[in-house]
């Protein structure tokens, strides 16, 4: 700035750079930290001004001045060299063996089974998951048992402030926590972990991060307004998106079933998702997603020793079974991940230049992403 004026890295900056630019991912990292921010119907709402120069709201946000290279260094002790989909220790297909998990799950039930296992084995004492209310609004919740886990299974396609539950607690004793989150939430957790600000958050208790693959999430307000209009005001009971190539949103409301092309709901994708570089939750211990063409199976990416050990123990205990991921699927996954990165970079370029983006990445990495993603068919 040159004038000696201090750069604000508090709520003021968050308001300007995130809320003002409609970049909020609604991850919940800034919520329940202070009295000034509150979530309401799919939005983070600022209740009053805070004049602090530095704040955790800004420091933890996955859309503010992130030194991505530094973050990868801090977490994995290495740079983001594996540009396609982040660090991979091992990658495989997996599914839960107990049908209780696969029945309700979107695919293989691995996330539910792993959380259930981690709780039973006392690897963690609590989990942070994301159930939905009757009105489709997801929110974070502290869960401690199987029943609650099962209530959180499946997807609502709408982002919710999961990390608020982590911040809010209450936490006591030596409780360790496992968090299941979207890539933006996993990124926020990584920022919490590496933040130099005085910690009054329970991030040190987080000993397991399970990341979910994500291409985009919908903005609750406009999306539900759209559904409400389409469905004549009936409350929506169930939502599902059929796998490609069909890609239809199936909804049940009242006594009727509706099928809506996914393209019709694209306008409700959060703008924040359009500038997201991460499809596979690269900063997690273990990432879980679908496997294209293999119904009932999950793709599982082990990224850290913690993730590796959990999977091994769960497998040894007969909780999940694994199979190698076919090469074609791996290639396809890498392509999809790279494509998301390239699209984000393109979007940022359009929005005023990558150099002004919410993250910093070495010029070399940006160049590699752009060139390697060039040949991918969209």
């Amino acid at each position, binding site marked *: 700035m040159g004038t000696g004026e201090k750069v604000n890295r508090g709520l003021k900056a968050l308001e300007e750079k995130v809320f003002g630019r409609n970049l909020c991912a609604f991850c919940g990292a800034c919520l329940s930290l*202070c009295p000034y921010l509150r979530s309401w119907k799919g939005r983070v709402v600022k*209740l009053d001004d805070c*004049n602090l120069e530095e*704040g955790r709201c800004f420091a933890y946000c996955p859309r503010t001045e992130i030194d991505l290279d530094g973050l990868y260094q801090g977490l994995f002790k290495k740079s983001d060299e594996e540009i396609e989909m982040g660090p991979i220790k091992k990658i495989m297909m997996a599914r839960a063996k107990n049908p209780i998990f696969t029945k309700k799950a979107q695919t293989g039930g691995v996330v539910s089974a792993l959380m259930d296992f981690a709780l039973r084995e006392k690897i963690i004492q609590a989990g942070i998951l994301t159930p939905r209310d009757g009105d489709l609004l997801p929110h974070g919740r502290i869960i401690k048992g199987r029943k609650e886990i099962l209530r959180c299974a499946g997807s609502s396609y709408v982002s919710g402030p999961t990390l608020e539950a982590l911040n809010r607690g209450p936490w006591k004793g030596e409780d360790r926590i496992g968090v299941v989150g979207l890539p933006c939430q996993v990124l926020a957790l990584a920022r919490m972990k590496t933040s130099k600000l005085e910690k009054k958050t329970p991030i040190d208790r987080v000993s397991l991060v399970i990341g979910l693959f994500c291409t985009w999430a919908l903005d609750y307000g406009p999306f539900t307004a759209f559904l409400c209009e389409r469905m004549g005001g009936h409350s929506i009971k169930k939502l599902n998106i059929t796998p490609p190539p069909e890609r239809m949103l199936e909804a049940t409301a009242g006594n009727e079933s509706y099928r809506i092309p996914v393209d019709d709901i694209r306008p409700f994708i959060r703008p924040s998702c359009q500038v997201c570089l991460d499809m596979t939750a690269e900063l997690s211990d273990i990432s879980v997603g679908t496997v294209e063409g293999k119904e009932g199976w999950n793709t599982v990416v082990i990224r850290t020793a913690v993730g590796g050990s959990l999977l091994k123990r769960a497998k040894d205990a007969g909780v999940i079974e694994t199979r190698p991921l076919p090469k074609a699927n791996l290639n396809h996954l890498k392509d999809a991940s790279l494509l998301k990165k390239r699209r984000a970079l393109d979007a940022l370029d359009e929005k005023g230049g990558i150099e002004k983006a919410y993250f910093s990445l070495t010029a070399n990495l940006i160049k590699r992403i752009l060139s390697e993603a060039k040949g991918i068919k969209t």
Partner: protein
Amino acid sequence: MKSIAQNAPGKTVLLMGNEAIARGAIEAGVRVCAAYPGNPSSEIIGTLAKVAEEMNLHVEWSVNEKVALEVAAAASFAGLRGLCAMKQNGLNVASDFLLNLNLTGCRGGLVLVVADDPAGVSSSNEEDSRIFAKMGDLPLMEPANFQEAKEMTKWAFKISEELGLPVLIRSVTRVSHARGNVLLDELPQSSPKPRFDSSRALTAFPALPNHKILHERFNRAKKVFEESAFNFYRGPEKPELMVVTCGSGWMYSLETAINLNVQDRVGILKLGTTWPLPENLIIKHLKRTDRILFIEEVDPFLENNVKEIYAQNCLGLGLKAFFGKTSKHVPDVGELNPEIVNHAIQNLINISYEPRPTEYALRVHEAAAELVPARPLGFCAGCPHRATYWAIKVALTLDGRDGFVLGDIGCYSLGMGPSGFGQMKTLHAMGSGTGLACGLGQLDRFGLEQPVIAVCGDSTFYHAAMPALANAYYNGANFLLLLLDNSATAMTGFQPHPGTGSTATGKEAPVIDLKAICKVFGARVEIVDPFDVTATVEILLKLLQEEKGVKVLILKRECALVSAKHQKRLYEVEVDQKRCLGETCGCNRLCTRIFKCPGLMWDESAGKAHIDEAICTGCGVCAEICPASAIRKEAA
């Protein structure tokens, strides 16, 4: 000792101007006194209420000024003497009845005291009520000191009876609220038996003959006023400048003439009967000089009316120069003071005298600023309105549709300022928030997407908002009315009202239930305690989300100043210094920077909040908003 009721002729007592007016009414044998409270008039009826039993008076706080005037006029119709008091805004409310009453006339003496609030110190507006006297051809008097306040009131009853017209007395804050010596007269020993003369109907219709009768009465008033001792001239035979003044302007003018030592150069024509003006008296004194300065509160009432008399009679008077509010020698807004009068007179007679150097005032300001912390107008510690506006702020912000609050008159008008977090966006007359909501609550059909909220106090609801609520239901308006029920007419001094269970004289009265009224008007009604902030926010959000119709939320919590008198505090409140986050991330002084209850203090050196035990009323609301649970409340 109740000096107001003592039968001690010849005794001098120290009375407030409003008490002097009340005493004047008692000496005149008043029987029925009614008012709606409003500063600076409230002590007139308040004082009479205290001696009502002893003096065998009927004294009441009526629901509004129009009803109050009707109650007092009714006594007059039955041959008794009636007194009504109100502030300037009140006369606007009462004016519909007044401007028919002038045409029917009255029987027993009827005096209407209107206390104007120049500069609107405790009012929503600045208004000169005297114009109503002119509008209604009604006699008007303006006391200039405390003795006059008593004497004039007493005389006004007599004049009223003689003319068959209500008489207006216009006071101003500095007459009503200052104190001075008053010489008492004896009290009347008897009062006529009331009887309504049913042989002649009292009706303004047909208007023309009644209007003609009114003018005849008005002309008789003019004659009586020509001889009034309340009008007099003091000064040299041929002054360089003549001040024409009335009310508080008399004292200011006299003080200035003495201070400037120009009593031989400046004369003062002091008028006590200001409508109709004593024309002959004025013409006589206009002959003294060709330079005339008007000193009066608020509007150029004397100024314009004297000019009118001059225009009508100018052939015999020669050229005159008139100075005052029109010529800008006197400010045309705000309250007068001796300095303003001093300045005007100096200017006009070309002398220079500075009662105090200009920079002295600046120095006083500077010195005071260091010693006296700046305190914006705000709610008391523990005021339920602060909690209410906090909840409104949170609910409207979360709701996110730019909803807004339409308000009116009461302590809660402070909701426009920082202690109400700037939530209230309109302030006009009593009940106007609800009336405006009736209109804004119709605009959704034209595309208005913002939620509409009206706030209204309990006393104001009985006063003027009930018709608006009936209108809302009848015409299908969509809004949320928040009834801020603090069980008091708090802003004017805790006078009782139909919801409090007692009358002006302390007698038990039936309680008119707000909830029941609103339900009868077709509204959906909920009740919440604003001290329960979470519940209040929740129910506000719920009601805001609901689609159509009139919804009423009663926020029930007694005024903190009232409860302090009869119940112990709810909570002992303290700040756990270890838990208090102070200015750090996670709080940043929410309680002392944003919530700002005066019961909370910020200890700058420790960087922590404290409870000011002398001020805290123990409402416990701050404990609910503290993000670190550092503020703890325990049942007291």
